[in-house]
């Protein structure tokens, strides 16, 4: 179910300096995303999809142009405001899971709620629910090094979803997973998208992911060359 516009990027340019030269990662990118979308930024390596995802996630600033996420211009946000936006409204899923290695599964999933200063009871309920979504309640006390790749990514999904964010940004979430695990994860994300109306934005070039997308934004050399609504 597509809703109101929650992300709008306009004239987005991102240059990286590489010594004396500069490299343009994004070149006049314009797009918008509505709530509830299951969208993929698709393209080969170096096409600018991760850069765009980072800007949408307020982890990076554009060189030029605007990126408005949930009504906030990420370019004008202070460090603290950017952190607050990520903390309250955005969930991240990374290719290498990025679980906190000394924490248990439960503690990893609980972490965003600690930052949100939720009570212990609220945290407990939310964490258990999130672990149920990803089918890992039995592994709550395990450490990340005791999990398989698929399980680790499921924990990362639970951590991203536990605070019920409006947007989940997933950067190559299946790159380190086998086909079976990839499908499991994607089915789970699709289910969460449909049940909770969470917006998912993927940066991927994995065909398995692309097969699940409802919208495909194709990037090449920092430019959007195609924007296709699927199904």
């Amino acid at each position, binding site marked *: 179910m597509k809703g109101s516009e929650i992300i709008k990027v306009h004239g987005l340019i991102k240059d990286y300096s590489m010594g004396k030269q500069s490299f343009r990662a994004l070149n006049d990118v314009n797009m918008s995303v509505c709530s509830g979308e299951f969208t993929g930024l698709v393209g080969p390596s170096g096409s600018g999809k991760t850069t765009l995802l*980072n800007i949408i*996630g307020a*982890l*990076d600033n554009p060189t030029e142009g605007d990126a408005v996420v949930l009504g906030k211009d990420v370019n004008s946000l202070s*460090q*603290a405001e950017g*952190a*607050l936006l*990520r*903390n*309250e409204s955005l969930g*991240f899923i*990374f290719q*290498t899971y*990025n679980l*906190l*290695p*000394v*924490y248990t599964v439960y*503690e990893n999933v609980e*972490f*965003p709620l*600690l*930052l*949100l*200063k939720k009570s212990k009871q609220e945290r407990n309920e939310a964490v258990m629910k999130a672990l149920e979504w990803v089918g890992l309640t039995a592994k709550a006390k395990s450490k990340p090094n005791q999990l398989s790749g698929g399980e680790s990514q499921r924990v990362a999904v639970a*951590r991203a979803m536990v605070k019920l964010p409006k947007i989940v940004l997933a950067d190559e979430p299946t790159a380190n997973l086998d086909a079976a695990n990839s499908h499991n994860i994607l089915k789970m994300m699709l289910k969460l998208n449909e049940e909770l109306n969470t917006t998912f934005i993927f940066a991927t070039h994995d065909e398995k992911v692309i097969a699940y997308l409802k919208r495909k934004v194709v990037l090449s050399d920092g430019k959007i060359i195609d924007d296709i609504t699927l199904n």
Partner: protein
Amino acid sequence: MLIIKLAFRNITHAGLRSWLNVFVLSFAFVMIVMTEGLYDGMLQQVKDAVVDSEIGGGQFWQKDYDPFDPFSIENSHSKIPENLLLEIKKGNASAVLIVTAAIFPRGHVQSAVLKGIDPSQKIVKMPTYLLNDGSDTASIPGIIGSRMAKSTGLHSGDYLSARFKNINGTFDAVDIRIVEVMNTDVQSIDRDQIWIPLKSLQKIYRAPGEATVITLKKDVRYYPSGEPGWTFKNHDYLLKDLNDTVRQKKVTASFMFILLLGMALLAVFDTQVLAIFRRRKEMGTLMALGMTRKKVVLLFTFEGCLLGILALIAGAIYGIPLLAYFAGTGLNVPQVATQAGISIGAVLYPKYSIQLYIITSLILFISVVVVSFLPARRITRLKPTDALRGKMA
């Protein structure tokens, strides 16, 4: 509060790495307190010994007396003033007459100092009552210290002849029978000295009623009323050399302090630097999850600080009983240490004070905070996107 909670969680969950740091830090803490306590104890012990065995509550010196000028001793004696005589009679003071002499142990000539002291005195801790020995009227009973006995080869029961110049400038000699070799921690009542009864020395030296030094009882508060020809020397003056020597030794101890502290801080610094490099992805993740860079810096700094706090707690847990044990039983001092410039007893009792604990704890804690913060502040320049890729900006 959240940062402290997270830092505590990170530290406790990090396992062996954390506990090794805590151990190294706590060990340094305990060793620093122990070393400082040893020096404080040594100072106190040596001071107590000097006060008990030599200087009591202070001394009156005959105006010409200079212990560092042997030639002054010949003239540094005079009648004991009435006020001081009264104090001696009341048992609040004791007189000592000092005369230079030559002795001939093992066939060699050796200079010595004859010191006359009242055998019944109770002002200084010396076994002077043994000087009452009148079993051999042909000789004078004498007491020497163990260092003097070692350097001369004399033993209890031995006789020796002492040649001296009496008050009239005439050479005279006397036979002294060693009645006791005393063990004392105070070199200045031992080396090159022979203690004999005061009256005997006054008689052979032809100086009845005269003395060189009058020592006051330790706890007597005597306010000198300007006795002519005599100068009062208080503890500050009499212990100055000792305090200077101990101060010198404390400088040496401070090197040990810096070395121990440096080693411990190096461990923390190393851990922190390693953490900043090894945990870059974690930092990126923390930022992606909604922590500001400032909070990440705080988190890593607090982790270091917590190491310091845990080290202080661990140090207190095993250090206090250990140090209390040593303070009670003392530490055996090797013989060689007693020849190192300060006389120390065979057993050294360390002295620990709350002040010592607090100051050492504060120094350790502040140092840990600084070395934790220094590497952590690099995070302020770290871009979240670089951190997530494991890059350091």
